[in-house]
Each structure stands twice: as structure tokens, then as C-alpha cells.
């Protein structure tokens, strides 16, 4: 792997601006290949979401350097896709209007926008709900709309911050597979924060473990390339390889 990574972080530091100067992240280095699916796991409150925001250009790092395709950069100048734990749809907009928002902000209107939105709604299986308001949707449906909104403008980077954390276990499993299917149709580099180790192993090419190795500040303590072939199928979760990966990640977190 000596090609230039799509996204690289070099000794990133971060401290909350209104905090007492204590570091949250220290010496975080990682690199993500173009089109890879990377998952980040770790204890609650360790700073996973903070790292996700720094990588997405939503938070300026306190120190260190981000590299984008080998070029140093302060913040992304291109729009990224983002999905949160809560769907965060705009309740005053219909499903269609929510999904079209990223295109609207780029000044893309009219037929090409409408076609792209209906293509995305087809992909997430909500073509019939275009005129519904978010209040009328179930949690799983709303999260699929949020996913369609995050991908409609063909971003190069998709940030997923605990995207299925608010869903029930069954919906969560189904959404994981949906996500892989949608990802196959929209090749994009994915950086996902999750609490579920099995979800991370099942979905990702590489699982990063975050922890507080030295003192207070957190850093990436382990990385696990996942040796499951693609396309991933649900049955793979019963294989020994899958179980081994899950066990290894779990042990890395508890240490």
C-alpha cells in the first residue's frame, strides 16, 4: 500500500476550546485509502465523534496535519456526507425536500436534481414516501432518508456518527446490510463511529480502536484489518474468522 491515501491524519491533537486546556485527542495518526470503509470503536466519551468531526473538516484540529490525497489542508473545501445518531431531518421539509437539500445548497436545481433525488429514494426503498414529512416516518425509514441525503451530492467522504445507535436491534441489523448495498451503489470513502463491535467488524475493511493509552488524552491504540471477503453476507457472522475478529477487537478495547 504505497499509493497516496485518500485521507491521512498526522499527529492530530485536540483540546476543547472552552475546557481547561486538557487534551482530548493526542497524537492521532491514521490513513484511509480511497473507497475504504473504516470503523472506529472505543469506550463512550473517549473522543470518537471529535475525531470524526476533525477528519470531516467540521472541527479544526488543535495540532498536527490532515492530508487529503497527499495535499496538506486545514479544512475540507468539498462538501462531505454526514449521518448522525438522530436522523436530523428538517421537520418542515418533506422527504424529497430533505434529500434535495445538499444539491440545493450547491445551486443544482431542476430536472437533474429531481432525477438524482428519486434515484437515491429508489435506492433506499422510499420512492413512495417522497411527499411525506419526517414526523410520519419510522426511525429506520428516517435514517434511510438521512443516508440518501448524505449521498445525494456524491461526496467523496461519508461520515457516520453512530448512525444506527437509536434504532432497535432488528432494524439495526437490517440497516447495516442496507448500508453495504447502498455503499456498493455509491462508492465513497466511509468513516464510521459505532459502539457495536460486531457491526464494525461486519461492515468495515478496517476497525480502529480508540483508547486512553497514556494519561488523559485518547489516541488510536489498535487497528484491525478485517479479513472477511466482500460482498459481506449476513451468514458470515457465524464464521470463525468473524468471531475471531470480534474477540480481538473486544480485547483491544478492554485493555
Amino acid at each position, binding site marked *: 500500500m504505497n499509493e497516496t491515501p485518500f485521507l491521512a491524519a498526522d499527529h492530530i491533537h485536540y483540546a476543547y476550546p472552552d475546557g481547561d486546556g486538557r487534551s482530548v485527542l493526542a497524537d492521532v495518526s491514521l490513513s484511509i485509502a480511497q473507497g475504504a470503509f473504516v470503523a472506529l470503536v472505543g469506550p463512550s466519551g473517549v473522543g470518537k465523534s471529535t475525531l470524526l*468531526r476533525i477528519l470531516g473538516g*467540521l472541527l479544526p484540529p488543535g495540532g498536527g496535519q490532515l492530508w487529503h490525497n497527499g495535499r496538506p489542508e486545514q479544512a475540507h473545501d468539498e462538501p*462531505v*456526507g*454526514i449521518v448522525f445518531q438522530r436522523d*436530523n431531518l428538517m421537520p*418542515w421539509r418533506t422527504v424529497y425536500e430533505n434529500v434535495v437539500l445538499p444539491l*440545493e*445548497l450547491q445551486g443544482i436545481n431542476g430536472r437533474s436534481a429531481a432525477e438524482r433525488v428519486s434515484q437515491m429514494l429508489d435506492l433506499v426503498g422510499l420512492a413512495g414516501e417522497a411527499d411525506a414529512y419526517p*414526523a410520519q416516518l419510522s426511525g429506520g425509514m428516517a435514517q434511510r432518508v438521512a443516508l440518501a441525503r448524505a449521498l445525494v451530492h456524491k461526496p467523496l467522504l461519508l461520515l457516520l456518527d453512530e448512525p444506527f445507535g437509536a434504532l432497535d436491534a432488528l432494524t439495526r441489523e437490517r440497516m447495516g446490510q442496507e448500508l453495504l448495498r447502498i455503499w456498493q451503489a455509491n462508492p465513497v470513502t466511509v468513516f464510521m463511529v459505532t459502539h457495536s463491535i460486531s457491526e464494525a467488524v461486519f461492515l468495515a475493511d478496517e476497525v480502529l480502536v480508540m483508547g486512553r493509552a497514556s494519561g488523559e488524552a485518547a489516541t488510536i491504540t489498535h487497528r484491525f484489518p478485517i479479513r472477511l471477503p466482500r460482498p459481506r453476507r449476513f451468514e458470515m457472522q457465524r464464521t470463525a474468522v468473524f468471531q475471531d475478529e470480534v474477540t480481538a477487537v473486544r480485547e483491544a478495547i478492554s485493555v
Partner: protein
Amino acid sequence: MRLLRSLPNWLTILISFLMLLAGWQLLVMIGGYPSFILPSPANVAQQIVVVVADGRLLRHSLITISEIIPGLLIGFFVALPLGYLLAKSPLAERLISPYLIASQAIPIIAVAPLLTIWIASTYWSRVLVAALVVFFPVLINIIAGLRSVPPELYELMHALKATPGQIFRKLEFPAALPIILAGLKVGATLSVIGALVGEFVQPKSQGLGFLLVTARYQFKTDLVFVILLTLAAIALSLYGLVALVERRVLRWQT
């Protein structure tokens, strides 16, 4: 009771209104009050016919309405940018809000005479009193509305590289709109009070406030009642108008 609940809304309102009138009439009859203390509904109805027929009610009402509407609009449109500033800038809030809050402890009836000294135009001094009364509750709601925007939606807009103008138009304004409109509803009823206070301190031969002062001096209590009813009707109409806009704009809430 069940019968009453099954009736359409307008009919229950009509029934309660008729019961109110009957109770009022009964009170006058039992108490035997002279008309200048408590006029009967019939007296008031007669007086309505008189002031409608000679055009006085319409003329004075239009003058008062012409003070209420600009007062409401000015109060609203001054509160809007200031509310935005206070919601967005902690420094501005620290600097300005103590004075804003202290100003609310001063009754408008005490400030209004000052305004008539400072502002030569009778009309504009009244409009300004109305605007002042509207201003504060609208301001508070605008700030509350803007603060209610979920931080994650800001992050979404930043991830999508939205400009500050786009963030205002497509996120902050629509997100705050329900609370802003609730403030405007309160403001709509207060603007009537404001215009009336303005007329009390500047009772120059026009407006419902002037008519009210005159009627009181002449012990025409039935006319006072007519004016109070008219003011209530104006306030209700304004409130209804904002509620109508609200239903149109906030269809997604149902």
C-alpha cells in the same frame, strides 16, 4: 353535557356567548343599576347601532388600526435582527440584555408620555408606543426560536459547505418560525393595548382611545362598552390572522 360536546365548535361558542349576555342582562335587572354604571346588553346594542350609523365607530377604529398595524410590524422587524444578534453573539447579549430586561420593569404607561414629548407627530408617537409593547415578547421568542435549532443541523450545514446566508434562510429561519409566530400572536394582542395607551396619553380628537376617554367623561358607559368590544374584536381578528398564517406555513406540524 354529552349533547354539548357533540355540537359543532361555532355553536358551542354561540351558546356560551348567549349565556353570557343573559347573565349580564339578569345582573342589570336584579341589581337595578343605572345605565351609566352598568348598561344592559340592550343599551349597548342600541349604542352600537348609533355609532355605526353615524360612522364614528368605523372612523375611530380605522385610525386605531392604522396605528396598530405599523406598530406591530415595526416592533416585529426591529426585534428580528436584534434577536438574531443576541442569539448569535454572547458578547452582544451580555452588553444589551440587562438594559432590555430592566426596560421591561418600567410600565409602558410611564414611558408613553415621554415619547409624546420627544416625537412631535401624534400619529408616530402612538405607533411607537404600540411597537414598544410588541417588541419585547417578540424578541424573546426570536431568541428562543433561534436557540432551539439543533446543533447537529448546524453541523450538517457546515458539512455541506452552506454559506451563512443559506444557513439563515434554509435552517435558522424555518426552524425558529413556529416559536417566532407564537411570539407574533402575543405581539398582535399587545399591539392593540399599545396603540390604546398611545392614544390615552395623546388624546387628540381621534382613535378609539380618544373616544373611550370622551365617553368616560360624559358617563356614556354604554359607549365605553361598545369600544371595549370593538378593541376585543380587533385583537381577536389580528390574532386569528396570525393563526391563519401559522396554519398555512406550519402545515408540516400536523
